[in-house]
C-alpha cells in the first residue's frame, strides 16, 4: 500500500492515483500494463467529469452576474441564492421533446453537439491544474489547443448545415468567416508566451512564469489580444454573430431542442470557462502562487481563483458591449488585430534579443521592465497611427461628397485602417 505520508495532503490526488494502481496490481493481480490503462482511464473520466460539472456552477454564476450588470436580481427562487436553478434547467431540458426537423441530415445533426462538447472537454487534457497535476504534459500543448478548437468550428458547421434551415446555415457561414479569421491573430498572440518560455508545453510555460514573472506583465498586448480573439473564437457577445438572435434568430442551433440544445449550451459555457483557464495558464501564471510548489493542492486553488477572475471579465464584456457588425468584425480582425499581433511578436522577439545581448546579467525585473516598455511603445505607436489616419479621413470627409463615402467607410473600420489606405469591401461570404 502506498505510504500516505510520502505524498501528504498536498498531493492527495496523486496518492489516490497510486492507491488505485496498487489496488489493481497487488490486490486484483492484474498485469501492470492493463492496470496502467485502467488507471489512465479513471484519471481521464475524473478530469472529464470535473470539466463537465463546471458549467452547472458557471451558468448560475453568469446569470447572476449578468443580472447584476443589468440591475436585476437574477435567479433567486430555486435553492439559496438560486443556486439550484441550473439543476432545474437541466431537468427541464431532459424532459423536452427531442425534435429532428424534416429534411435534416440525421446522423450529422445528432453528431454535431457531441463533437462540440468533445472539442471543449479535450482541451482540459493539457491545462495544468497544479505543479504535479496535468492531464497530458505534451510538448506541443499550445498547438494542441489550436488544433482542438478547429474541431469546435467543424461541430458548429455540421450543426448549421444539417439542420436544413436557412438561418442555421447562415450561422454556419458566419462561423466559417469569423472563427477561421480570428484564429490567425490568436495563434500569433499564442506565439509570444511560447517565445518567452522557450517551449510549447503548457506546464513548461507555467514553470517559466513561476521562475520569472507572469506574462501579463511581460506581454500585455499579446495577453489582451489572446483574450479578445478567444472570446471571438467561442462566439460570445460582443462577437456572437453566429447566433445573433435579432438577425438570424438563433443561428446554428436554431433547430435543436431538449438535451441536444443543452449540449450546445454546455459546450458554449464550458468553452467560455476554458478560455479563461487558458488565459490564466498562459498569462496569469497558472497554478503559481505562494507555496504552490510545496503543496500542489494550493495550486488548484490559485488556478481556479485566476480562472474565475478571467471568467468574470468574459461575463463583464458580454453584458457590457453591444454586438459588433459583421463587416466591422472582419475589418477589425484583418486590419487591426492581425497586424498588432505580428507587431507584438516582433517587438517581443527584438526586445528579448536586445536584453540578452546588451544586458547579459539582467535579472527578471530588468527583463520585465524592458518588455513591458516595448509593449507600451507599440501601443503608443499604433494609437498614433490610428489618430493620424482618422484625422486624414476627417479632412477628406470635409473635402467633398465623393470622398465622404470613402471616409465614412474608413471610420467604420474601427480605427484599423492604418495598414491599408484603400477601403476594402465587406467580404460577401460573411452575409
Amino acid at each position, binding site marked *: 500500500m502506498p505510504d500516505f505520508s510520502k505524498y501528504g495532503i498536498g498531493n492527495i490526488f496523486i496518492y489516490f492515483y497510486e492507491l488505485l494502481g496498487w489496488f489493481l496490481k497487488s490486490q486484483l493481480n492484474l498485469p501492470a500494463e492493463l492496470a496502467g490503462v485502467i488507471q489512465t482511464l479513471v484519471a481521464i473520466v475524473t478530469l472529464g467529469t470535473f470539466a463537465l460539472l463546471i458549467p452547472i456552477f458557471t451558468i448560475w454564476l453568469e446569470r447572476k452576474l449578468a443580472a447584476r450588470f443589468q440591475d436585476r436580481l437574477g435567479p433567486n427562487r430555486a435553492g439559496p441564492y438560486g443556486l439550484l436553478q441550473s439543476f432545474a434547467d437541466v431537468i427541464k431540458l431532459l424532459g423536452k421533446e427531442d425534435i429532428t426537423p424534416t429534411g435534416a441530415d440525421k446522423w450529422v445533426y445528432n453528431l454535431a453537439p457531441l463533437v462540440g462538447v468533445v472539442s471543449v472537454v479535450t482541451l482540459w487534457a493539457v491545462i495544468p491544474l497544479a505543479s504535479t497535476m496535468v492531464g497530458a504534459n505534451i510538448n506541443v500543448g499550445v498547438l494542441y489547443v489550436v488544433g482542438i478548437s478547429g474541431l469546435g468550428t467543424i461541430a458548429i458547421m455540421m450543426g448549421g448545415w444539417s439542420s436544413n434551415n436557412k438561418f442555421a446555415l447562415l450561422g454556419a457561414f458566419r462561423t466559417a468567416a469569423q472563427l477561421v479569421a480570428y484564429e490567425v491573430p490568436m495563434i500569433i498572440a499564442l506565439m509570444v508566451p511560447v517565445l518567452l518560455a522557450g517551449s*510549447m508545453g503548457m506546464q513548461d510555460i507555467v514553470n517559466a512564469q513561476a521562475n520569472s514573472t507572469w506574462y501579463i506583465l511581460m506581454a500585455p498586448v499579446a495577453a489582451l489580444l489572446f483574450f479578445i480573439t478567444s472570446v471571438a473564437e467561442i462566439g460570445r457577445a460582443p462577437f456572437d454573430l453566429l447566433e445573433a438572435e435579432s438577425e438570424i434568430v438563433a443561428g446554428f442551433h436554431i433547430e435543436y431542442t431538449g438535451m441536444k440544445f443543452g449540449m450546445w449550451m454546455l459546450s458554449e459555457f464550458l468553452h467560455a470557462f476554458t478560455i479563461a483557464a487558458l488565459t490564466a495558464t498562459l498569462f496569469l501564471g497558472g497554478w503559481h502562487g505562494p507555496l504552490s510548489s510545496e503543496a500542489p493542492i494550493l495550486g488548484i486553488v490559485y488556478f481556479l481563483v485566476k480562472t474565475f477572475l478571467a471568467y468574470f471579465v468574459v461575463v463583464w464584456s458580454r453584458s457590457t458591449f453591444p454586438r459588433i457588425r459583421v463587416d466591422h468584425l472582419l475589418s477589425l480582425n484583418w486590419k487591426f488585430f492581425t497586424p498588432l499581433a505580428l507587431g507584438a511578436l516582433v517587438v517581443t522577439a527584438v526586445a528579448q534579443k536586445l536584453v540578452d545581448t546588451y544586458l547579459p546579467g539582467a535579472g527578471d525585473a530588468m527583463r520585465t521592465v524592458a518588455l513591458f516598455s516595448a509593449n507600451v511603445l507599440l501601443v503608443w505607436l499604433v494609437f498614433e497611427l490610428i489618430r493620424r489616419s482618422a484625422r486624414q479621413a476627417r479632412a477628406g470627409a470635409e473635402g467633398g461628397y465623393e470622398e465622404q463615402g470613402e471616409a465614412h467607410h474608413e471610420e467604420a473600420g474601427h480605427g484599423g485602417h492604418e495598414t491599408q489606405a484603400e477601403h476594402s469591401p465587406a467580404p460577401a461570404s460573411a452575409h
Partner: protein
Amino acid sequence: MTVSQILFLVVAAVMLISAVLVVTLRNLIHAALWLIATLFFVAVLYVLLDAGFMAAAQVVLYIGAIAILIIFAMMLTRRVMADETVQINSQWWLGGLVAAAAFVAVAGLLNASAWPGLPAVDDATITNSIKMLGTQLTSPDGFVIPFQIASILLTVALVGAIAVAGEKK
C-alpha cells in the same frame, strides 16, 4: 499483443474504413466528414509513433484549415452532386488493376526489405524533438535556406491570392 499494438490495429482499421467511405459515399458533406475522420486517425497514428508535433500539425492544418474550407465550399453547393452523378466510368477495371498492382508491389517491397535496425530513440529525444526541429530549421548548417524559400513562396502565394480575389479598380 501489447496495448499499443491493439490500439494501432484498431486505429488503422477505422482509418481505412473511413478512407473507403470518403470515396464511395454519394453525399459530399458526409464524404468530407469521413475525410476529417481519416485525417484525425492519421494524427492518432502519429501520436502512437510519439511524433506529437506531426500529430498536432496534422490536426491544425488538415482539419482546422483545409477540411473546414472544403466543407465551406460544399455548403455553397448543397446537394448538387448527391444522386445523379455516376461515381465510376467505363475504365473502372483498369483503375482497379493498377491499384492492385501497386498494392502487390508495395507489399512485396516491404516484405523483401531487410529492415536494418533503426537507432533506438530515447525519451529525451522525444521531449526535445521540437527544440531540435526549430534548431534545424534556423541553423545555417541545417535547413535554413529551404525554410526561407518556403516562407517566401507562401508569402508570394498569400499576396497573389489577395491580388486575384481583390477588387478590380
